[in-house]
């Protein structure tokens, strides 16, 4: 990166002074309330300091005063773009502690809902990333499809943003009659549209110029900084908790056919119908992080289709009754799930009461964002939104 910095200074040969620039906390491309203090020399950024905490709502403190069932609505509000996946993480953590497992039908239902949540979340990630780079229409197209998923969620649980649908033991209700048909109809309509997104962004010359080779994150750096999810897989590290995580979680995905999107030996799996990697792209740059998200959407579609088939054939109830004030056995456990933005971990310590002694959330974006100062060293001012946007952060999850 230093070589770029030097070459640009020589190229322009303009005398500039160092300047501190505040970006945020309320700026559209900071994805919430993130304040970035940039030290700039002309157009070149030499240092970025993120300041977080503007959305800190003491979720962990509240978790120490509520039963696990009562804390579910707070998990929704952490990652408000993928509330279903947050519900699932906390539910599984509590189930691990209690030593119970959702019945088969409940597990199939959870996979359907969680993967639909992943599609909805990646659509926002993709659309908002286009917005960061100055293109507006992909944002509208992405939200058009996301709204249809939210309609499906509304039919299932009555809410469009904060669901509280998946709870310890299973789900609050079974899917309504005809829901799976509506879901399949949506997938049939949605799948061809993915090609439009590739035309609009992935293969767009301007988009490639703005993202390829920018903010390169090496695999060693990604792992060292605890980056997870598409940020880690965009750097070529083959790690996904749906396959490598806790047995309680991986069991849900064990008999489903899907691929973990990650570059192996220079190419992506099943990438024939999708655009090729442009020559300018370097593994671990903004373009790769974006591309991994786009391909993951297709895998989620596959997972939902298959899970719906298995859900229809499954037996049992949608959930086990776990009472609101049920006593939790004394113990402690930690469980991570693969949320759309990375590994979402929950840690719970209980003492035998109904209320946990400590409820801790390890958020994926917290670690993902901590790498931003490293990535933004020596880039141009206009590339800072490109780098921060490619991490796909949600401030509610970072600040909790």
């Amino acid at each position, binding site marked *: 990166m230093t070589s770029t910095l030097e070459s640009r200074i020589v190229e322009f040969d303009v005398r500039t002074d160092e300047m501190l620039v505040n970006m945020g906390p309320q700026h559209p491309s900071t994805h919430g309330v993130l304040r970035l203090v940039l030290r700039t020399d002309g157009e070149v950024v030499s240092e970025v300091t993120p300041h*977080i*905490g503007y959305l*800190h709502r*003491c979720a*962990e*403190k509240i978790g*120490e005063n509520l039963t696990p069932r009562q804390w579910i609505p707070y998990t929704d509000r952490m990652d408000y773009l993928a509330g279903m996946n947050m519900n699932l993480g906390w539910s599984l953590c509590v189930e*691990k*502690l209690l*030593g119970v497992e959702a019945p088969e039908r409940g597990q199939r239902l959870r996979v359907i809902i969680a993967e639909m949540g992943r599609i909805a979340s990646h659509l926002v990630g993709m659309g908002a990333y286009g917005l960061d780079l100055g293109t507006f229409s992909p944002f509208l197209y992405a939200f058009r499809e996301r709204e249809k998923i939210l309609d499906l969620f509304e039919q299932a649980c009555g809410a469009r943003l904060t669901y509280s649908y998946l709870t310890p033991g299973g789900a609050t209700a079974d899917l309504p009659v005809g829901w799976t048909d509506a879901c399949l109809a949506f997938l049939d309509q949605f799948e061809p549209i993915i090609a439009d997104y590739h035309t609009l962004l992935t293969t767009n010359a301007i988009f490639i110029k703005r993202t390829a080779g920018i903010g390169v994150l090496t695999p060693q*750096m990604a*792992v*060292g*900084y*605890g980056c997870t999810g598409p940020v*880690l897989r965009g750097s070529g*590290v083959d*790690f996904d908790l749906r396959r*490598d995580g806790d047995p309680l979680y991986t069991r849900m995905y064990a008999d489903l056919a899907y691929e973990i999107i990650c570059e192996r030996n220079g190419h992506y799996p099943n990438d024939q119908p999708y655009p090729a990697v442009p020559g300018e792209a370097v593994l671990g740059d903004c373009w790769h992080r974006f591309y991994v998200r786009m391909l993951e959407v297709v895998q989620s579609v596959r997972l939902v289709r298959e899970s719906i088939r298995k859900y229809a054939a499954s037996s049992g109830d949608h959930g086990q009754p776990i009472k609101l004030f049920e006593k939790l*056995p*004394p*113990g*402690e*456990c*930690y469980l*991570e799930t693969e949320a759309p933005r990375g*590994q979402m*971990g929950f*840690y719970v*310590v*209980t*003492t*035998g*009461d109904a*209320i946990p*002694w*400590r409820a*801790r959330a*390890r958020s994926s974006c*917290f*670690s993902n964002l*901590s*790498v931003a100062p*490293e990535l933004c060293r020596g880039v141009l001012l206009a590339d800072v939104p490109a780098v921060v946007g490619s991490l796909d952060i949600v401030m509610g999850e970072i*600040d909790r």
Partner: protein
Amino acid sequence: MSPTDRLLQKFGDAVRPVAAERGDPWFEVDADRLVAVCQYLRDDAAFGCDMLNCVSGVDTLQADPKRRPPQGRGPGIELVYHLSSTRLKHRITLKLILPRWQDEAAQQLPEAPSLTGLWPTADWHEREVYDLMGVRFVGHPNLVRILCPEDWEGHPLRKDYEMPLEYHGIRGR
């Protein structure tokens, strides 16, 4: 010899395995050997813990007489380190037990060694624990508050923390 046995043999009394009835087992580590143990876990081929997932703080003070503290533990601050390996796909939990105050009368924060030299991700995680739980990490390059404002008083996740009545003219409670 299994990797765990080698770990226990190498560090002797400084690492003690604890099997929990519910949930994950953990290793209790002495504060002065923590960095050495973590470096061993990271660099040894059989462990290969290249990722520090999470650093959590737990306060085990019983401030509310109606609630039971976690079993068999006196008042103290526990630091829980969740490590995992992206290559071998396994997880290890380490636990460090600190007193609540270095010196009760002077209200001096307890100290733990920083792991920023081993994993850069420890930087933010340790700042968060310092901010909310009040543990001073020795060797941390920039130990300032991360979630609360810089001039905030007290550490909100401690069990005896009391919400301030006023902050810069804003009424609390």
